[in-house]
Protein backbone atom coordinates (compact mmCIF):
# COMPACT_ATOMS: atom_id res chain seq x y z
CA UNK A 1 0.00 0.00 0.00
CA UNK A 2 1.14 3.58 -0.76
CA UNK A 3 1.76 5.92 2.12
CA UNK A 4 -1.30 7.58 3.65
CA UNK A 5 -2.46 10.89 2.22
CA UNK A 6 -2.94 13.77 4.66
CA UNK A 7 -6.70 13.87 4.14
CA UNK A 8 -6.94 10.15 4.91
CA UNK A 9 -5.02 10.76 8.14
CA UNK A 10 -7.40 13.56 9.16
CA UNK A 11 -10.40 11.39 8.35
CA UNK A 12 -8.91 8.63 10.49
CA UNK A 13 -8.34 11.06 13.37
CA UNK A 14 -11.90 12.38 13.12
CA UNK A 15 -13.41 8.90 13.00
CA UNK A 16 -14.60 9.53 9.47
CA UNK A 17 -13.56 6.19 7.95
CA UNK A 18 -15.42 2.93 7.56
CA UNK A 19 -14.26 -0.06 9.63
CA UNK A 20 -12.48 -1.57 6.62
CA UNK A 21 -10.69 1.69 5.78
CA UNK A 22 -9.73 2.14 9.41
CA UNK A 23 -8.25 -1.36 9.51
CA UNK A 24 -6.34 -0.67 6.31
CA UNK A 25 -4.86 2.52 7.81
CA UNK A 26 -3.92 0.72 11.03
CA UNK A 27 -2.25 -2.08 9.08
CA UNK A 28 -0.21 0.42 7.15
CA UNK A 29 0.71 2.39 10.26
CA UNK A 30 2.05 -0.71 11.96
CA UNK A 31 4.74 -1.01 9.32
CA UNK A 32 5.46 2.56 8.23
CA UNK A 33 7.46 4.87 10.48
CA UNK A 34 6.97 7.84 8.16
CA UNK A 35 3.18 7.59 8.33
CA UNK A 36 3.29 7.04 12.09
CA UNK A 37 5.15 10.33 12.36
CA UNK A 38 2.70 12.06 10.05
CA UNK A 39 -0.23 10.71 12.05
CA UNK A 40 1.27 11.87 15.35
CA UNK A 41 2.01 15.27 13.85
CA UNK A 42 -1.58 15.86 12.78
CA UNK A 43 -3.04 14.36 15.93
CA UNK A 44 -1.12 16.92 17.99
CA UNK A 45 -2.23 19.74 15.69
CA UNK A 46 -5.90 18.78 16.01
CA UNK A 47 -5.67 18.23 19.79
CA UNK A 48 -3.94 21.56 20.36
CA UNK A 49 -6.50 23.35 18.15
CA UNK A 50 -9.36 21.88 20.13
CA UNK A 51 -7.91 23.14 23.39
CA UNK A 52 -7.04 26.71 22.40
CA UNK A 53 -7.67 29.19 25.23
CA UNK A 54 -11.10 30.80 25.45
CA UNK A 55 -11.56 34.52 24.82
CA UNK A 56 -12.60 35.75 28.26
CA UNK A 57 -16.14 37.13 28.37
CA UNK A 58 -16.31 40.19 30.72
CA UNK A 59 -18.52 39.73 33.78
CA UNK A 60 -20.83 42.58 32.76
CA UNK A 61 -21.14 41.46 29.15
CA UNK A 62 -24.65 39.98 29.35
CA UNK A 63 -26.12 42.90 31.38
CA UNK A 64 -24.60 45.36 28.88
CA UNK A 65 -26.29 43.66 25.92
CA UNK A 66 -29.56 43.33 27.82
CA UNK A 67 -29.43 47.05 28.68
CA UNK A 68 -28.80 47.95 25.04
CA UNK A 69 -31.81 45.92 23.92
CA UNK A 70 -34.25 46.52 26.72
CA UNK A 71 -33.80 50.16 27.66
CA UNK A 72 -35.64 50.42 30.92
CA UNK A 73 -38.59 52.81 30.84
CA UNK A 74 -38.55 55.28 33.74
CA UNK A 75 -41.53 55.17 36.10
CA UNK A 76 -43.62 58.38 36.64
CA UNK A 77 -41.98 58.82 40.03
CA UNK A 78 -38.53 58.75 38.38
CA UNK A 79 -39.69 61.28 35.79
CA UNK A 80 -40.92 63.66 38.53
CA UNK A 81 -37.69 63.25 40.48
CA UNK A 82 -35.58 63.96 37.37
CA UNK A 83 -37.69 66.99 36.43
CA UNK A 84 -37.46 68.39 39.99
CA UNK A 85 -33.69 68.08 39.97
CA UNK A 86 -33.56 69.77 36.56
CA UNK A 87 -35.73 72.70 37.67
CA UNK A 88 -33.79 73.11 40.90
CA UNK A 89 -30.48 73.11 38.94
CA UNK A 90 -31.84 75.73 36.50
CA UNK A 91 -32.97 78.04 39.35
CA UNK A 92 -29.63 77.59 41.07
CA UNK A 93 -27.74 78.39 37.84
CA UNK A 94 -29.88 81.49 37.34
CA UNK A 95 -29.07 82.84 40.79
CA UNK A 96 -25.41 81.99 40.29
CA UNK A 97 -25.35 84.05 37.07
CA UNK A 98 -27.27 86.81 38.83
CA UNK A 99 -24.72 87.01 41.63
CA UNK A 100 -21.75 86.92 39.25
CA UNK A 101 -23.12 89.52 36.81
CA UNK A 102 -23.77 92.08 39.50
CA UNK A 103 -26.87 93.21 37.59
CA UNK A 104 -30.10 94.05 39.16
CA UNK A 105 -32.60 91.21 39.16
CA UNK A 106 -35.21 93.02 37.02
CA UNK A 107 -32.64 93.80 34.29
CA UNK A 108 -31.41 90.24 34.30
CA UNK A 109 -34.95 88.87 34.00
CA UNK A 110 -35.64 91.29 31.15
CA UNK A 111 -32.49 90.20 29.32
CA UNK A 112 -33.32 86.57 29.87
CA UNK A 113 -36.87 86.94 28.53
CA UNK A 114 -35.52 88.89 25.52
CA UNK A 115 -33.05 86.05 24.76
CA UNK A 116 -35.77 83.40 25.06
CA UNK A 117 -38.17 85.39 22.86
CA UNK A 118 -35.49 85.94 20.19
CA UNK A 119 -34.69 82.23 20.23
CA UNK A 120 -38.32 81.23 19.67
CA UNK A 121 -38.82 83.93 17.01
CA UNK A 122 -35.83 82.55 15.05
CA UNK A 123 -37.10 79.00 15.42
CA UNK A 124 -40.50 80.01 14.04
CA UNK A 125 -38.90 81.74 11.03
CA UNK A 126 -36.72 78.69 10.35
CA UNK A 127 -39.76 76.40 10.60
CA UNK A 128 -41.77 78.58 8.19
CA UNK A 129 -38.93 78.52 5.66
CA UNK A 130 -38.61 74.73 5.95
CA UNK A 131 -42.34 74.31 5.31
CA UNK A 132 -42.07 76.52 2.22
CA UNK A 133 -39.11 74.53 0.82
CA UNK A 134 -40.92 71.26 1.51
CA UNK A 135 -44.12 72.42 -0.23
CA UNK A 136 -42.07 73.52 -3.27
CA UNK A 137 -40.36 70.11 -3.38
CA UNK A 138 -43.74 68.32 -3.23
CA UNK A 139 -45.08 70.55 -6.02
CA UNK A 140 -42.07 69.82 -8.25
CA UNK A 141 -42.32 66.05 -7.67
CA UNK A 142 -46.06 66.17 -8.35
CA UNK A 143 -45.56 68.03 -11.64
CA UNK A 144 -42.77 65.65 -12.67
CA UNK A 145 -44.92 62.56 -12.04
CA UNK A 146 -47.90 64.14 -13.87
CA UNK A 147 -45.73 64.89 -16.90
CA UNK A 148 -44.30 61.38 -16.82
CA UNK A 149 -47.76 59.82 -16.71
CA UNK A 150 -48.99 62.07 -19.55
CA UNK A 151 -45.93 61.07 -21.61
CA UNK A 152 -46.58 57.37 -20.96
CA UNK A 153 -50.24 57.79 -21.89
CA UNK A 154 -49.22 59.43 -25.20
CA UNK A 155 -46.84 56.54 -25.96
CA UNK A 156 -49.55 54.01 -25.06
CA UNK A 157 -51.97 55.48 -27.64
CA UNK A 158 -49.36 54.87 -30.34
CA UNK A 159 -48.98 51.18 -29.42
CA UNK A 160 -51.35 48.32 -30.20
CA UNK A 161 -53.21 46.54 -27.36
CA UNK A 162 -50.78 43.54 -27.46
CA UNK A 163 -47.76 45.79 -27.04
CA UNK A 164 -49.52 47.69 -24.25
CA UNK A 165 -50.11 44.39 -22.37
CA UNK A 166 -46.50 43.31 -23.00
CA UNK A 167 -45.21 46.65 -21.74
CA UNK A 168 -47.38 46.46 -18.60
CA UNK A 169 -46.22 42.90 -17.84
CA UNK A 170 -42.60 44.00 -18.36
CA UNK A 171 -42.99 46.92 -15.97
CA UNK A 172 -44.65 44.69 -13.33
CA UNK A 173 -41.86 42.05 -13.58
CA UNK A 174 -39.18 44.73 -13.40
CA UNK A 175 -40.83 46.29 -10.32
CA UNK A 176 -41.08 42.90 -8.58
CA UNK A 177 -37.42 42.12 -9.32
CA UNK A 178 -36.46 45.57 -8.06
CA UNK A 179 -38.39 45.05 -4.81
CA UNK A 180 -36.85 41.59 -4.40
CA UNK A 181 -33.38 43.08 -4.86
CA UNK A 182 -34.08 45.75 -2.26
CA UNK A 183 -35.37 43.10 0.15
CA UNK A 184 -32.24 40.96 -0.27
CA UNK A 185 -30.01 43.99 0.17
CA UNK A 186 -31.54 44.92 3.51
CA UNK A 187 -32.46 41.49 4.85
CA UNK A 188 -30.77 40.97 8.21
CA UNK A 189 -29.53 37.50 9.08
CA UNK A 190 -30.36 35.61 5.94
CA UNK A 191 -31.74 32.18 6.72
CA UNK A 192 -29.82 29.03 5.97
Amino acid sequence: MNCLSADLIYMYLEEGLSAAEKQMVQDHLSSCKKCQRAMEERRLLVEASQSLPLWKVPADFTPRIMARIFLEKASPREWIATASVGIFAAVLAFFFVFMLSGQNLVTLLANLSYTVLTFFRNIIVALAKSVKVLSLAVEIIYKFISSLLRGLASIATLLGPELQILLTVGVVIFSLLFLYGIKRKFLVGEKT
Partner: protein
Amino acid sequence: MAPMHDDKELVRRTLQGDKQAFEMILKKHQQPLLNYVGRMVQNRELALDFTQDIFIKTYYALDTYQPRYKFKTWLFKIASNHIIDYWRKKKIEAFSINHRNRRDSDQSGFQIPSNEPSTCKKFELTDLRHKIEQALEKLPPSLRELFIWRHVNEFSYEEIAEIKGLPVGTVKNRVYQSKEFLRQFLEEKI
Protein backbone atom coordinates in the same frame (compact mmCIF):
# COMPACT_ATOMS: atom_id res chain seq x y z
CA MET B 1 -42.50 18.81 24.45
CA ALA B 2 -39.32 20.91 24.01
CA PRO B 3 -37.01 21.20 27.05
CA MET B 4 -37.18 24.53 28.87
CA HIS B 5 -33.63 25.50 27.85
CA ASP B 6 -33.82 24.35 24.26
CA ASP B 7 -32.88 27.18 21.89
CA LYS B 8 -36.11 27.02 19.95
CA GLU B 9 -38.14 27.13 23.15
CA LEU B 10 -36.07 30.09 24.38
CA VAL B 11 -36.66 31.92 21.09
CA ARG B 12 -40.40 31.26 21.36
CA ARG B 13 -40.45 32.63 24.91
CA THR B 14 -38.38 35.68 23.92
CA LEU B 15 -40.85 36.47 21.16
CA GLN B 16 -43.60 36.37 23.77
CA GLY B 17 -41.76 39.07 25.74
CA ASP B 18 -39.79 36.91 28.17
CA LYS B 19 -36.53 38.85 28.68
CA GLN B 20 -35.01 36.12 30.82
CA ALA B 21 -35.28 33.69 27.94
CA PHE B 22 -33.14 35.95 25.75
CA GLU B 23 -30.69 36.37 28.60
CA MET B 24 -30.35 32.59 28.68
CA ILE B 25 -29.68 32.56 24.94
CA LEU B 26 -26.95 35.16 25.49
CA LYS B 27 -25.30 33.23 28.29
CA LYS B 28 -25.37 30.02 26.30
CA HIS B 29 -23.88 31.37 23.07
CA GLN B 30 -21.68 34.33 24.06
CA GLN B 31 -18.57 32.27 24.77
CA PRO B 32 -18.48 30.28 21.49
CA LEU B 33 -19.46 33.40 19.55
CA LEU B 34 -16.70 35.49 21.14
CA ASN B 35 -14.19 32.69 20.50
CA TYR B 36 -15.12 32.82 16.83
CA VAL B 37 -15.41 36.61 16.40
CA GLY B 38 -12.25 37.26 18.40
CA ARG B 39 -10.13 34.99 16.26
CA MET B 40 -11.63 36.44 13.11
CA VAL B 41 -10.96 40.11 13.91
CA GLN B 42 -7.91 39.60 16.14
CA ASN B 43 -8.76 42.54 18.39
CA ARG B 44 -10.40 42.18 21.79
CA GLU B 45 -12.34 45.47 21.91
CA LEU B 46 -13.58 45.05 18.36
CA ALA B 47 -14.52 41.45 19.07
CA LEU B 48 -16.57 42.46 22.12
CA ASP B 49 -18.32 45.24 20.17
CA PHE B 50 -19.06 42.90 17.26
CA THR B 51 -20.38 40.17 19.53
CA GLN B 52 -22.74 42.66 21.15
CA ASP B 53 -23.88 43.96 17.76
CA ILE B 54 -24.46 40.42 16.50
CA PHE B 55 -26.66 39.58 19.48
CA ILE B 56 -28.62 42.79 19.02
CA LYS B 57 -29.10 42.07 15.30
CA THR B 58 -30.17 38.56 16.22
CA TYR B 59 -32.70 39.84 18.75
CA TYR B 60 -34.34 42.16 16.23
CA ALA B 61 -34.40 39.43 13.58
CA LEU B 62 -35.82 36.75 15.90
CA ASP B 63 -39.28 36.95 14.33
CA THR B 64 -37.76 35.85 11.02
CA TYR B 65 -36.04 32.80 12.54
CA GLN B 66 -37.42 29.56 11.17
CA PRO B 67 -37.42 26.78 13.81
CA ARG B 68 -36.77 24.08 11.22
CA TYR B 69 -33.13 25.26 11.25
CA LYS B 70 -30.75 25.06 14.20
CA PHE B 71 -30.63 28.33 16.13
CA LYS B 72 -26.87 27.99 16.52
CA THR B 73 -26.27 27.84 12.75
CA TRP B 74 -28.60 30.79 12.21
CA LEU B 75 -26.78 32.85 14.84
CA PHE B 76 -23.37 32.07 13.37
CA LYS B 77 -24.59 32.89 9.87
CA ILE B 78 -25.57 36.34 11.15
CA ALA B 79 -22.13 36.60 12.77
CA SER B 80 -20.35 35.54 9.60
CA ASN B 81 -22.32 38.06 7.52
CA HIS B 82 -21.53 40.77 10.08
CA ILE B 83 -17.81 40.11 9.80
CA ILE B 84 -17.96 39.91 6.00
CA ASP B 85 -19.66 43.33 5.97
CA TYR B 86 -16.87 44.65 8.17
CA TRP B 87 -14.19 43.38 5.80
CA ARG B 88 -16.09 44.78 2.83
CA LYS B 89 -16.38 48.20 4.44
CA LYS B 90 -12.67 48.12 5.15
CA LYS B 91 -12.25 47.06 1.52
CA ILE B 92 -10.19 44.07 2.53
CA GLU B 93 -10.48 41.20 0.15
CA ALA B 94 -10.82 38.59 2.80
CA PHE B 95 -13.75 36.42 1.95
CA SER B 96 -13.27 36.07 -1.75
CA ILE B 97 -12.60 32.39 -1.49
CA ASN B 98 -12.87 31.24 -5.07
CA HIS B 99 -9.36 32.02 -6.16
CA ARG B 100 -7.86 30.71 -2.96
CA ASN B 101 -9.60 27.39 -2.88
CA ARG B 102 -8.51 26.03 -6.18
CA ARG B 103 -8.02 22.65 -4.56
CA ASP B 104 -11.65 22.00 -3.69
CA SER B 105 -11.69 19.13 -6.13
CA ASP B 106 -8.06 18.17 -5.73
CA GLN B 107 -7.59 16.65 -2.31
CA SER B 108 -5.03 14.19 -3.54
CA GLY B 109 -2.67 17.13 -4.10
CA PHE B 110 -1.49 16.92 -0.49
CA GLN B 111 0.73 13.91 -0.17
CA ILE B 112 3.06 13.44 2.74
CA PRO B 113 6.59 14.38 1.77
CA SER B 114 9.24 11.83 2.50
CA ASN B 115 11.21 12.20 5.73
CA GLU B 116 8.76 14.83 6.91
CA PRO B 117 9.96 16.38 10.20
CA SER B 118 7.58 16.03 13.11
CA THR B 119 6.90 19.73 13.55
CA CYS B 120 4.25 19.68 16.26
CA LYS B 121 6.21 17.29 18.46
CA LYS B 122 8.95 19.87 18.82
CA PHE B 123 6.66 22.14 20.83
CA GLU B 124 5.16 21.75 24.25
CA LEU B 125 1.36 21.77 24.08
CA THR B 126 1.08 25.33 25.47
CA ASP B 127 3.71 26.50 23.05
CA LEU B 128 1.98 24.73 20.20
CA ARG B 129 -1.33 26.43 21.03
CA HIS B 130 0.44 29.78 20.97
CA LYS B 131 2.01 28.99 17.59
CA ILE B 132 -1.38 27.91 16.23
CA GLU B 133 -2.91 31.23 17.34
CA GLN B 134 -0.14 33.05 15.48
CA ALA B 135 -0.57 30.86 12.42
CA LEU B 136 -4.34 31.47 12.46
CA GLU B 137 -3.68 35.18 11.84
CA LYS B 138 -1.91 34.24 8.61
CA LEU B 139 -4.66 31.90 7.46
CA PRO B 140 -6.99 33.46 4.84
CA PRO B 141 -10.18 34.46 6.68
CA SER B 142 -12.37 32.26 4.51
CA LEU B 143 -10.43 29.20 5.68
CA ARG B 144 -9.84 30.52 9.20
CA GLU B 145 -13.58 30.80 9.74
CA LEU B 146 -14.18 27.16 8.82
CA PHE B 147 -11.21 25.96 10.88
CA ILE B 148 -12.45 27.81 13.98
CA TRP B 149 -15.95 26.43 13.64
CA ARG B 150 -14.67 22.91 13.19
CA HIS B 151 -11.81 22.73 15.69
CA VAL B 152 -12.43 25.51 18.21
CA ASN B 153 -16.22 25.59 18.33
CA GLU B 154 -16.36 21.89 17.46
CA PHE B 155 -19.24 22.18 15.00
CA SER B 156 -20.02 19.23 12.78
CA TYR B 157 -19.26 19.49 9.07
CA GLU B 158 -23.01 19.43 8.43
CA GLU B 159 -23.56 22.42 10.72
CA ILE B 160 -20.80 24.38 9.00
CA ALA B 161 -22.26 23.48 5.61
CA GLU B 162 -25.64 24.79 6.82
CA ILE B 163 -24.10 28.08 8.01
CA LYS B 164 -22.19 28.71 4.80
CA GLY B 165 -24.66 27.15 2.39
CA LEU B 166 -21.93 24.93 0.93
CA PRO B 167 -21.87 21.19 0.18
CA VAL B 168 -20.49 19.11 3.07
CA GLY B 169 -17.70 17.77 0.85
CA THR B 170 -16.52 21.29 0.03
CA VAL B 171 -16.49 22.21 3.72
CA LYS B 172 -14.48 19.09 4.61
CA ASN B 173 -11.96 19.88 1.93
CA ARG B 174 -11.55 23.50 3.00
CA VAL B 175 -11.14 22.56 6.66
CA TYR B 176 -8.53 20.05 5.55
CA GLN B 177 -6.75 22.76 3.54
CA SER B 178 -6.76 25.05 6.56
CA LYS B 179 -5.14 22.38 8.74
CA GLU B 180 -2.43 21.71 6.20
CA PHE B 181 -1.87 25.45 5.81
CA LEU B 182 -1.37 25.76 9.58
CA ARG B 183 0.89 22.73 9.73
CA GLN B 184 3.04 24.04 6.89
CA PHE B 185 3.18 27.46 8.54
CA LEU B 186 4.37 25.89 11.80
CA GLU B 187 6.96 23.90 9.90
CA GLU B 188 8.33 27.05 8.23
CA LYS B 189 8.50 28.81 11.60
CA ILE B 190 10.97 26.36 13.03
